[in-house]
């Protein structure tokens, strides 16, 4: 009996050790939540569209899994794509159907093997087969409007111009969204509505949104006072939240928001204490 107790205690201690290590010995990386099944893309401005493209590029599109300068070597780094895309068409190896840079980028996603960047093909295929998944296929499943958003992001991120058509909101379910975009947008009635209207949730975790480009705002009220929050919205580059890039958060909310919307948002954020 004593032996039995001893070895039981030994086994439990070993197990506890492993469990502890897995819980506190390594950082707990929370894998991205499953992408939303049907995201409707309403009408929006090109700036918003580009922001959406970046968000898809880093999230749902899974692109940064491979196209990631930190990791290197797995896939081309996708810099200067507005120029690169044009150059690819002139490559004698190019056998695809694209005629413009925009079409090239779309083809790269819809049919990755149409042109394989030298040195990045699957092993032993002599660069005829791309390891990149078909982005419109079931595994990633981006819709045409989402692919266009990513193209807009790729074209503009290093200084090019977006050539993709804006989403009409035709694939958005509620028709009013499209109608609203044509007329000057009505002022939001509540703070939650304003969050949606200015797409804060695309970048921030706040309310029902779970964006991750910018800081989590669910506890912001505990840390910051109202004047800081007001400035953070009107002039984002005045203070840069630690660990986040400057210049990502749109600079023009001051021109777009009504004073009432701004005050509602500030109050709302101040009330977010976790």
């Amino acid at each position, binding site marked *: 009996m004593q032996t*039995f107790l001893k*070895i039981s205690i*030994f086994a439990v201690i070993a197990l506890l050790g492993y469990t502890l290590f897995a819980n506190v010995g*390594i950082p707990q990386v929370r*894998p991205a939540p499953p992408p939303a099944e049907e995201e409707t893309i309403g009408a929006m401005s090109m700036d918003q569209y580009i922001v959406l493209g970046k968000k898809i590029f880093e999230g749902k599109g899974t692109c940064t*899994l491979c196209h990631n300068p930190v990791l290197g070597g*797995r896939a081309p780094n996708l810099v200067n794509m507005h120029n690169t895309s044009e150059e690819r068409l002139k490559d004698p190896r190019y056998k695809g159907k694209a005629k413009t840079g925009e079409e090239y980028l779309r083809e790269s996603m819809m049919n990755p093997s149409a042109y394989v960047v030298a040195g990045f093909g699957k092993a032993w295929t002599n660069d005829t087969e791309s390891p990149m998944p078909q982005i419109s296929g079931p595994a990633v499943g981006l819709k045409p409007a989402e692919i266009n958003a990513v193209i807009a992001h790729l074209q503009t991120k290093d200084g090019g111009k977006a050539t993709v058509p804006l989403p009409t909101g035709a694939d958005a379910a509620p028709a009013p969204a499209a109608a609203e975009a044509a007329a000057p947008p009505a002022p939001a009635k509540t703070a939650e509505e304003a969050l949606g209207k200015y797409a804060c949730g695309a970048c921030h975790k706040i309310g029902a949104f779970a964006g991750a480009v910018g800081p989590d705002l669910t506890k912001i009220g505990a840390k910051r006072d109202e004047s800081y929050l007001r400035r953070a919205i009107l002039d984002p580059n005045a203070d840069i939240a630690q660990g986040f890039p400057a210049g990502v958060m749109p600079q023009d909310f001051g021109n777009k928001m009504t004073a009432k919307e701004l005050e509602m948002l500030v109050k709302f954020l101040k009330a977010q204490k976790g």
Partner: protein
Amino acid sequence: MGSFLKRRFIKRQAVVTAFIFTLLLFVPILSHLIASAPDTINASAAFAAEKKEAVESPAAKKEEKSKVEYPPAPKLKEKDYPRIKSMNSRISVWILAQIHLFFAAFVLAVPIFVLVIEGVGKATGDERYDHMAHEFIKVSMTAFSLTATSGGILVFMLIAFYPDFMKYLASVFGSVMIIYAMLFLAESIFLYIYYYGWDNMRYGFRKWVHLTLGLMLNVSGMTIMVLGNSLATFMMAPSGVDASGVFTGHVWEAIRGPLWNALNLHRFIANIAYGGSVVGAYAAYKFLSAKSKEERAHYDWMGYTANIIAISALLPLPFAGYWLTAEIYAYSQTMGITLMGGAFAWLFITQAVLIGALFLSANYYLWCGMERIKGSERYTKYVKYIAAVIVICFLVWFTPHSLIKTPIEEKAIGTHHSLLGPLGLMPAKNSAVNIMILFTFLSFTLYKRSSKITTAAWAKSGVAAEIAIFAVGIVNIIALGIYSYMVTSNIKVGMSVPQVFTTLSIIIAISIIESRMFKNAKSTGDIEWGKMPARSQYALLLLAVSFTWLMGLMGYVRSAIRQHWHVNSIMRDSSPDAFTPTIGYAANVVSISTILFMLLVIFVFWLAQFAAKKQEA
């Protein structure tokens, strides 16, 4: 007399059970016959009709008739998942599946080495082997019923919580599921006869019958395993279905998916190592609680054999693991990177800790084992160097190489280690694993040598050759590792192949030299079985606990890289549990499963002891 009657009774019971099971085996055959009977009649009627009208060939008509329309994979909503109050569907299924796997892996593995040991006993005529084989299989008998029970509960839970998924899976794998169940019956029949017929079929021709039964037992067990694996690999990398999940009707295509063989091999080897380690823990417990010297000697020997089995399977395991990973990459680079470079990068650090614990405890046990051998003093002085090398290799393997998936994770992980950066990269890890394996092999070689003195005239040059082979091999592995840093990542992955080849060549070459050199060796005296410090037995226990836990952890990651899919890219998991949990969360579930598993095992042994006491009285 009483006990004799009792034995007779048990035997009769076994025969009756076997008979009923055999009858059950005919169920699918009969059902097929019955179902096809009217078909045959119809076909001949149609044939008669056609003879008059001469329209179509009867064969074509029949084919059209028997063509089944398969459904596409359903698109589920959250409400399609039944909820049971106060029960979390995924955790319940997860824990049960894990416990079922623990038992199943054990029950699959034990007959493999029991058969081998029995064969060795037959070949050498040494009765002790036969006894030990018999005792091993006794341990797995009780586990067998728990395998069946946990499997049954698991199936019911799956149907209760994931009915639409199970329905879809059955539309593709229905026939496999039925064969699986039937094979399980066959396996139980063979196991019962094999176990209960052990003494009866002990000698002469009957022994051959018995060995054949053991072979059949293993054949059915292996088939069950590979069929079960096909479901798991189908969920990860579906084949035999089109993009919307409609089954092509060729079940072999669905079974033989791109990951199937790699998983089969890895699980097969891992199961043997795992089975060996659990039997080792059993022997350790018996050793520690033994009252007599004979008992201690017996269980020492049993633990030693179990440990040898575990180590022999442990050595090739990393290679099988890398093959599996390579196949995952080849199937989908996204999945491969998710596995090795995404959110799970830290899981492999945890795995490294566990594997380090496995290698160190296995080696430690061998080193302790030298104490029972006269003549081992010649080699004990090397132990500390071997230990140092293994620890260094372990540290290299353990060095994290943070690979990042998204900016969010980047923040959570931090960037590369600035100082140890290169050591955290794959080439260094590959080299470390290979060296760790080679030094474990070295421990084992020294252990075997301890009790022998060579009489070969060329012994000096033999040892020199061995040292040369070993040294050149290690240098080669390290050089290949360093060279890997200078090439692109495509080729880098390929560099592990010559490394593995080097390791295997060294092991084979030295084994051959050793066996020649010690062919007619003088013995330094008997091995004093039972002369083993108690702490060595704790190494055996740690081996079993680590193995069990590691198996749960790796099962989790295999499943988790599918992310939010039931069947990767074909059938989405829309339940509230579709999120991928953190490693800590997974570790907690695995620990709970392990503890439940250990409690069940203890309960079973307690029952067995209880029954044995009753019988004695």
